[in-house]
């Protein structure tokens, strides 16, 4: 026992401790330090990333910075569509503990049936359930004040359409996720969409952002889209169309107003329409943008092109006399008729009274290929150059496959099809000195550059014929309007009923009118179409022309165009019956 450590000199306190014990303690403490050091190295060096991340998760937050969807504006900068905040209410069903009265209050505020609310909150496994999306801010405020546990709000954006149903088909709408579904909202979705930004912040215990870390990605707001539409023109075009559809007990109708200088679409409306903000029970009939998607045989509207070609190529003059008696002509066994015999007509009068026989006789002097070139040059059967969802190209068969009777019917607008929009655009040939111009939905104040179809001289001559057609002794005198000279062509067609065109008393019609004003220097082209008018009148000159007349007058007034004819009531009511 000689090997021991002496802690004190006092013999009283002398303990006989073996040396190994103190060494053991020293060793144990040293081992402890080694352990700590290793752990520290593990945390600080080897597994540093993991711990760093775990720390950040607990205080770092990535915030999304929402980007607003761009607005849709009319040509004067008035809002056609804009996003407004609309809170959405959501819940964590597990956390919700409401008594019956509270549930009833909530259901009432949300505007849903208590049963439905109960169903939504029933599934306690879910950690998230929308109660109602995009409600109005006042209601959301009331719900927030109730401070129900487990009920939360989140700001979303909802589109609002101040013009409502008048512009619905042009503007379209978005779905609840802010994605374009129809119309311009769909067409320009990528332009209108913004890109949301992000930022990283450190949040404190109370959830307040206290410090910004890292880089911030700024949100890019969606761009505004300015359309060529004029809300005023759009509104009364829609209004007049709606009134006419209702008065004539028609199924539907369309109207297009085009600026004859720039090719801008000033108005494009269809009836029936819908309110883009309240889209419950929408039917396909309401959604259809008939002016662009419905094709039909253009009928008499084509005659000016046939006559224009004959004038252009020098085959006839405006004063050339064509004998249309006895009111019918037979081409390879098939007979083409006028509604009643007109006798000898000048080329001008052929258009004025809309004689099928006269047009056929002129057309048969020309090769089919030339007619096809003119028609397709005017946009018929061509891909619609306006990129609109659902826009169609219509049909114009290649000239090679035309039999003589088909060439004859094509000359007065049968055997080919086009949308109302295509017809309106094709008339820019006559309004724009023989050149067809691009139609556009976007604002564009530059005069359009056209592609020549006819010479300016031919265009002027045809304009005069169109004026005669819309004047006394023509087929559409009801197209006339106070103060402005107009010109245009009406059309009426049987619609297919079952296998044929229906029997007398059971026929269905489609009526339309396409024209321009003021006739010497056209500013606008207007096309009106009514589908299945059933109130007795059905000729294009009687049901569609009055809508044309009112629309022309209001549009030119809004555009500040001075009347070009002496102002006196000039409406002449004795129409010559037009041919089918």
């Amino acid at each position, binding site marked *: 026992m000689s090997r021991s450590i002496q802690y004190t000199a006092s013999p009283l306190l002398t303990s006989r401790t073996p040396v190994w014990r103190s060494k053991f303690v020293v060793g144990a403490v040293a081992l402890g330090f080694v352990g700590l050091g290793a752990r520290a190295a593990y945390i600080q060096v080897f597994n540093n990333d993991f711990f760093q991340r775990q720390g950040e998760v607990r205080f770092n937050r990535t915030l999304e910075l929402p980007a*607003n969807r761009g607005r849709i504006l009319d040509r004067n900068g*008035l*809002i056609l569509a*804009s*996003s*407004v*905040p609309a809170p959405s209410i959501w819940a964590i069903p597990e956390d919700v503990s409401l008594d019956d009265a509270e549930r009833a209050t909530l259901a009432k505020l949300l505007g849903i049936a208590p049963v439905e609310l109960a169903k939504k909150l029933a599934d306690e496994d879910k950690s998230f359930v929308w109660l109602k999306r995009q409600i109005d*801010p006042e209601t959301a405020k009331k719900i927030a004040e109730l401070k129900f546990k487990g009920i939360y709000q989140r700001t979303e954006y909802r589109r*609002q359409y*101040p*013009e*409502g149903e*008048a512009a619905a088909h042009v503007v379209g709408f978005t779905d609840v996720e802010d994605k374009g579904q129809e119309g311009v909202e769909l067409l320009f979705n990528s332009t209108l969409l913004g890109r949301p930004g992000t930022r990283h912040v450190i949040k*404190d215990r109370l959830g*307040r*952002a*206290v*410090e*910004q870390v890292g880089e911030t990605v700024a949100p890019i707001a969606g761009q505004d889209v300015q359309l060529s539409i004029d*809300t*005023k023109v759009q*509104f*009364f075009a829609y*209004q007049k169309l709606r009134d006419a559809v209702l008065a004539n007990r028609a199924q539907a109708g369309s109207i297009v107003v085009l600026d004859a200088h720039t090719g801008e679409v000033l108005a494009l409306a269809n009836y029936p329409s819908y309110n883009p903000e309240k889209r419950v029970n929408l039917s396909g009939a309401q959604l259809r943008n008939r002016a662009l998607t419905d094709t039909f045989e253009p009928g008499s509207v084509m005659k000016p092109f046939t006559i224009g070609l004959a004038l252009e190529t020098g085959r006839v003059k405006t004063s050339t006399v064509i004998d249309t008696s006895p009111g019918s002509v037979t081409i390879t066994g098939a007979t083409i008729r006028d509604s009643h015999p007109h006798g000898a007509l000048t080329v001008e009068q052929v258009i004025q009274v809309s004689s099928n026989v006269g047009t056929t006789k002129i057309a048969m002097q020309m090769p089919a290929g030339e007619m096809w070139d003119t028609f397709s040059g005017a946009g018929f059967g061509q891909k619609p150059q306006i990129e609109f969802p659902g826009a169609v190209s219509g049909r114009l068969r290649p000239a090679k496959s035309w039999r003589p009777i088909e060439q004859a019917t094509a000359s007065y607008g049968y055997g080919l099809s086009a949308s109302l929009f295509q017809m309106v655009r094709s008339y820019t040939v006559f309004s724009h000195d023989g050149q067809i111009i691009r139609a556009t939905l976007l604002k564009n104040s530059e005069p359009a550059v056209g592609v020549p179809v006819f010479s300016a001289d031919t265009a002027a001559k045809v304009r005069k014929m169109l004026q005669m057609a819309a004047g006394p002794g023509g087929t559409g005198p009801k197209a006339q309007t*106070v*103060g*402005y000279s107009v010109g245009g062509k009406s059309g009426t067609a049987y619609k297919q009923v079952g296998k044929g065109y229906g029997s007398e008393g059971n026929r269905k019609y489609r009526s339309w009118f396409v024209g321009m004003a003021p006739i010497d220097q056209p500013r606008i082209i207007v096309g009106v179409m009514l589908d299945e008018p059933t109130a007795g009148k059905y000729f294009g000159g009687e049901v569609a022309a009055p809508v044309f007349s009112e629309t022309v*007058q*209001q549009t030119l*007034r809004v555009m500040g165009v*001075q*009347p070009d004819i002496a*102002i006196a*009531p000039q409406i002449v009511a004795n129409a010559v019956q037009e041919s089918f």
Partner: protein
Amino acid sequence: MIRVNILLALATVASAMYLVGVQYESRRLFTELEKAHREARRLGTELERLQVEKRSQATPARVERVAHEKLQMRQVTPGITLYMNLGDAMPAKP
């Protein structure tokens, strides 16, 4: 020497306290700024909402209805419009 050390220690403590204070203040200010930004965004969207609201109160449909029903106004036509030609109305130069 000891005095200098004490002085330095005090200075360090003081600077540390100051740092804590500044850090706190900066976080407080940041929160304020954040709040102001949120308010700005809220006001921005509110403006947008009100503009849309204003627009929907002034749509041609509503204007026409009010003009027609409340004010008994009627549609303008060229028949009841007097057109003045500014070019002619100007006095000729002497």
